[in-house]
């Protein structure tokens, strides 16, 4: 089951990152293999979002290195990483509220060759028939769940090799959470790797092959989701060693 790190699609080594004087990540190392779904869990403020931002180039890192498909990500911005096939869907279903669903997807395809855009958009919408029916509605008119579907669809327009999803369940009703996470399963069947940051640990584990737990800016757990007594280990990771 475990594939050696050398074949990893995304490989992060000893990464340090933070905001100004505040160091958030301390020597974080992790990897994602091709076609693998990896869950990244951890308490608030542990640095999960910061890690995703550092990987996708939204935040410069201060130490360590990360490679994607054997190419270093040092100094690359989000535009370059997205072109390379590493797509980051940020938290908070931030759609462009004043533009239609279709235009939101067109924007995601800004770098896609003009002739391919329509096909790519239809392909992405095929995952979400709910919003395909609303392609002419404004992004701001969608419900929170539909907006979340839209931002995931925006990511899919790029045909990613690795899709990083930051808290796709936040603020959604349970049914919609299952709906959005169901797509993760579909992507996995089609061979797309997913790095999933989630608050809903149990649901995240159900969709993932492997799990990392991040606490206080450090990786404190790296287990396959089939590991024995996993929930206990994660609880211990969350609450420190007080238990």
């Amino acid at each position, binding site marked *: 089951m475990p594939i050696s790190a050398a074949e990893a699609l995304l490989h992060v080594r000893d990464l340090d990152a933070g905001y100004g004087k505040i160091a958030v990540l301390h020597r974080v190392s992790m990897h994602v293999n091709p076609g693998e779904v990896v869950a990244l869990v951890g308490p608030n403020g542990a640095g999960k979002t910061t890690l995703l931002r550092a990987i996708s180039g939204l935040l410069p890192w201060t130490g360590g290195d990360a490679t994607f498909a054997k190419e270093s990500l040092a100094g690359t911005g989000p*535009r370059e990483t997205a*072109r390379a096939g590493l797509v980051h869907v*940020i938290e908070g279903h931030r759609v462009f509220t004043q533009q239609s669903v279709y235009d939101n997807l*067109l*924007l995601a395809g*800004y770098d896609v060759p003009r002739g391919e855009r329509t096909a790519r958009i239809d392909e992405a919408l095929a995952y979400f028939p709910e919003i395909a029916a609303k392609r002419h509605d404004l992004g701001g008119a969608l419900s929170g769940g539909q907006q979340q579907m839209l931002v995931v669809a925006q990511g899919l327009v790029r045909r990613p090799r690795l899709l990083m999803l930051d808290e796709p369940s936040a603020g959604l009703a349970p049914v919609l959470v299952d709906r959005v996470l169901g797509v993760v399963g579909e992507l996995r069947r089609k061979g797309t790797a997913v790095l999933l940051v989630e608050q809903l640990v149990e649901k995240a584990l159900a969709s993932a092959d492997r799990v990392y737990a991040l606490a206080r800016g450090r990786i404190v757990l790296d287990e396959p989701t089939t590991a024995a007594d996993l929930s206990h280990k994660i609880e211990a990771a969350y609450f420190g060693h007080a238990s």
Partner: protein
Amino acid sequence: MAFGATLASILSTGLAMGAIYALIGITYNVMYSTSRVMSFTAGQLGMLGGVLGALFTLRLGMPLLVGFALTLLCCAVVGMVTEFVAVRPVLASLDQHLYVLSTLALALIIQQVTAIEWSTEPQAFPRLFGIGSGALDEKFWLPVVACAMTMGALEWMQRKTLVGRAFLAVAEDNFAARALGLPERNLRIASYALAGAIGGIAGYAGGELMLAFFANGAFLNFYGFVPVALGGLGNNRGAIVGGVALGIFQQAANFLVGGIFASVAVFVVFIVVLLAVPQGLFGTSTARRV
């Protein structure tokens, strides 16, 4: 008869000046939309539109169309210079308002170079078409037509082109646009070039009315910002309504209470609106701070 003539004069001058103010307001807005920066070069671009138009056509004797194209090109370049010199270096610390100082410095540099190399006195601006007279003279309707055409082109661009949508996306949520892989930096430079051209159009279309005068820059900085304050930051339609309202109000006050108090009246209205409706009459309220 006399009243009718006065009314016609108030309306024609008011609409013309209002359209110029509105165009400068749009210049502020276009720069603001991609950078969250309000730049003092907006008014100077309007001044340059007039001065460069006169320079190319009258002093250098170029054909009208070439002069116009060159004027817009130069103004677009000045817009891009604004982005490189006065905006990008201070974007990282937007909350310290250093952009107020850096864009002011650049605006003063532009103004002083113009004063010294061009003239400190108002200079003639070429008569473009020679159509109309009295209240229907081209100097009155040209700015209005320019404003309407600019607004139409902007709206068309935002609705029908991907670049236009990308502008809107960066304006609404810069971070999300960046995360989506949009070339945010290039879009910002492009928006400054576009703003430069719009400022140039304002000055060029208003050249016959305002002449080619270096001090128009500071004047337009203030009067062009009033529509932005009235219409709400980033709201182009609001800027047009605000600009026209300001132009007509100013001319009416000019007639009713005289030039001294007309400018006082404008200033008072500006302060009162800012205090009563800080987000502008058509604007949306501001973000959270904590």
